[in-house]
C-alpha cells in the first residue's frame, strides 16, 4: 500500500503548521520524517491517519489510488503508535492488544480462539509472551512501547504510522529497539512512516528520510543522499556536526582567508564536517594553523577541539584512533588543519529564517 500526499496545507488559526507538502511513500517502504521540534511532523502523521484534517481544498491524501482525504479514521485502517504509548490503562496487555479485534462488528470479528492465537503470536513477535496478564503500569517504557506496536499491528493495518516511537526511552534501549524495528519491518514489510527528531535514528532505520523545517519539506532522499548531498544549509546542519568557515570566492574556488587581501571578491560561508578535516604537523600553504584545546578519545574515533590561531574560531575534528595514535597529539600544541571536503551553498540554498 503506497501513500501519496499532494499539495497539503494545514493551518491552526493564523499559524501555518504545514505548507504545501507533497510526498510519496512506496509500498513496503520505511520512511522517516525528520525535523526539529515543532516543525509539523506529528501534524503530518495525524493527517495521514485521519486524526486531523488538512485545510479545506488544500490537498489530497491517497492510499494506493484510493483518495482518503475525506474518509474517517476507521475507514483508513492504519496502525498508529502514539508518542506516549497511550495504552488502555485499565486493561491488561492481552486485552490491550486484542482491543482492535474485539471491537469489530460480530460478522468480521474473529472467534475467541483466533483472537487469542493472534494476540499470542504478536506477544511473541514483540518478545513479551510472559507479560500478557500484566497491566501497562507494571511494564517498563520499552516494553510499553512494544505493546503499543503489537496493539497497532493486531488489526493488520494497511499502513503503520509511528510518532517518535522511541522518544521517551534512554539511549541504550532506543538503540536496541530501533534495530528491532528495522528487523520487524523486514519481516512484515508494511508501508511505514515514522517520526523522529534524532538524525541517527532516521539514518539507521529508514529507507528514505524526509527532512522538514517550519512546516516545509527541505529534502527527501536516502540516508546517504541526504548526508552526502544535503540540499541546503539547514539539512547540512541538521544531519550532522559541522564546522563553519568564512572565506572568499576566487575563480570558482573558496579561499579561507582572514587577511584583508582580495576584499573585492564575494564573501562565502563554507562548511566542513569534523571527519572531513585532516590534521598534520607540517605546515603547507593551504593549511590553517590551530591550537589543540581539548581531546576526547572514546571508542574508535578521537574528537579534537581546536582553536584557529588567526581568528580564535573553534574547529572540531574527528580522526581515526589509528591516526590519533600516530600523531601523538597533546593539548596546547599547534597543528595544521586541512579541509578536505568544503561545501558552499548558493544564496538560494541558504537557511530560510
Amino acid at each position, binding site marked *: 500500500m503506497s501513500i501519496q500526499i499532494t499539495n497539503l496545507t494545514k493551518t491552526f488559526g493564523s499559524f501555518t503548521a504545514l505548507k504545501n507538502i507533497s510526498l510519496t511513500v512506496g509500498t513496503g517502504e520505511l520512511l522517516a520524517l525528520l525535523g526539529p521540534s515543532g516543525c509539523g511532523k506529528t501534524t503530518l502523521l495525524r493527517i495521514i*491517519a485521519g*486524526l486531523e484534517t488538512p485545510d479545506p481544498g488544500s490537498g489530497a491524501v491517497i492510499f494506493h489510488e484510493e483518495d482518503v482525504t475525506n474518509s474517517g*479514521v*476507521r475507514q483508513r*485502517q*492504519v*496502525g*498508529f503508535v*502514539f508518542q*506516549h504509548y*497511550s*495504552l*488502555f*490503562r*485499565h486493561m491488561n496487555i492481552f486485552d490491550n492488544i486484542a*482491543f*482492535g479485534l474485539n*471491537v*469489530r462488528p460480530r460478522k468480521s470479528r474473529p472467534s475467541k480462539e483466533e483472537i487469542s492465537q493472534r494476540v499470542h503470536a504478536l506477544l511473541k513477535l514483540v518478545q513479551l509472551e510472559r507479560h500478557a496478564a500484566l497491566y*501497562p*503500569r507494571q511494564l517498563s517504557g520499552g516494553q510499553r512501547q512494544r505493546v503499543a506496536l503489537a*496493539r*497497532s499491528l*493486531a*488489526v493488520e493495518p494497511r499502513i503503520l504510522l509511528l510518532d517518535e516511537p522511541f522518544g521517551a526511552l534512554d539511549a541504550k534501549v532506543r538503540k536496541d529497539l530501533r534495530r528491532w524495528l528495522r528487523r520487524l519491518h523486514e519481516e512484515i514489510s508494511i508501508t511505514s512512516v515514522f517520526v523522529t527528531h534524532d538524525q541517527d535514528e532516521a539514518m539507521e532505520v529508514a529507507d528514505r528520510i524526509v527532512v522538514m523545517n517550519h512546516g516545509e519539506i527541505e529534502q527527501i532522499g536516502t540516508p546517504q543522499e541526504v548526508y552526502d548531498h544535503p540540499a541546503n544549509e539547514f539539512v547540512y546542519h541538521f544531519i550532522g556536526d559541522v564546522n563553519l568557515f568564512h572565506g572568499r570566492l576566487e575563480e570558482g574556488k573558496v579561499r579561507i582567508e582572514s587577511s584583508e587581501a582580495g576584499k573585492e571578491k564575494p564573501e562565502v560561508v563554507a562548511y566542513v564536517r569534523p571527519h572531513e578535516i585532516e590534521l598534520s604537523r607540517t605546515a603547507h600553504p593551504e593549511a590553517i594553523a590551530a591550537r589543540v584545546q581539548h581531546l576526547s578519545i572514546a571508542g574508535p574515533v578521537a574528537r579534537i577541539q581546536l582553536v584557529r590561531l588567526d581568528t580564535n574560531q573553534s574547529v572540531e575534528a574527528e580522526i581515526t584512533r589509528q591516526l590519533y595514535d600516530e600523531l601523538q597529539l597533546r593539548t596546547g600544541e599547534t597543528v595544521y588543519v586541512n579541509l578536505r571536503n568544503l561545501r558552499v551553498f548558493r544564496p538560494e540554498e541558504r537557511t530560510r529564517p
Partner: protein
Amino acid sequence: MKTMTTASNEQGWTARLLIAAAVLFLLVFLLLPLTAVFVEAFRKGVGAYFKSFTDPYARSAIKLTLIVTATVIPLNLLFGITASWAITKFEFRGKGLLLTLIDLPFAVSPIVAGLIFVLLFGSRGWFGPWLKAHDVQIIFALPGIILATLFVTFPFVARELIPLMQSQGTEEEQAALVLGAGGWQIFRKVTLPNIKWGLLYGLILCNARAIGEFGAVSVVSGHIRGQTNTIPLHIEILYNEYNFAAAFAMASLLTLLAVATLAIRSFIEWKTRREQAAALGEI
C-alpha cells in the same frame, strides 16, 4: 539539639491545641446535634419511632422523595456525562459559557431557583395560561418538584468529571478510534472505566442533595399533604405542629442517609486514592 527539642515541643503544643479546638468544635456543632436528632426521635420509645413511619403522610413523603431522586439521578448521569464529554473532548465556541452555566445552580440561592420555575410555569407565569389550557400542572405538582431538584443538583456530576477527564486527555480515545472502535464502544470500553469512580462520587453527592433539598422544592411544592410533600418539607410541617417525635424520626431517616452517603464517599475516595497511587507508579 536543645533548641530543636523546644521547637518541636512548642509545635507539639500548637498542634495539640489546634486538634483539641477542632475536636471540640466538631463535638458541639456536629456530633451533639446528630445525637440530639436520634435522642428526640426515640424519646417516646422504639415503638413510637417506627410507628411514625406508618403514618400515611410520612409514607407518601418518603415515596415522593424516592420518586424524585430516582428520576433526577439518571437525568443527571446523562447530562453530567454529556456535558463533561463535550467540554473535555471537543473544541467549540461558547465552551467557557457552558462551564459557567454549569456552575450557576451553585451560585444561585435555592429559593431563587424555585421562584424561576414559578415564574415560568406558575398560573400567572410565562407559560401558565398555555399549560392551563392544555391541562398540564407543573407547579404544586411532581414535575415542578423534579425540575427544581434537577436544577439544584445538575452541577455535581459534571463538576466531578470535568477535571478528571481533562487530566486524562484524549489519547486513549484516539488510540481506540484508530483501532476501529465506534463512538459508543470508545465510551463504554475506554472512557467509562477510567471515570467510573469519579462518576459514582458525583452521583452520590447529587443523591444526597436531591434527597435533602428544601429551599427550591419548598417554593414549587405547595405543601399539599400526602401529595407534594417531600421528606424535608414533611419534617418542617410536623415540627411546626409540635409533633417533635415524628419530626425527629423523619429527620433521623435523612441523617442515616447522610451517614451512609459519607461512608460510601469515604470508600470511593480510598479506592480512587489507591488507583491514583497505582497510576503514579505508571509514570
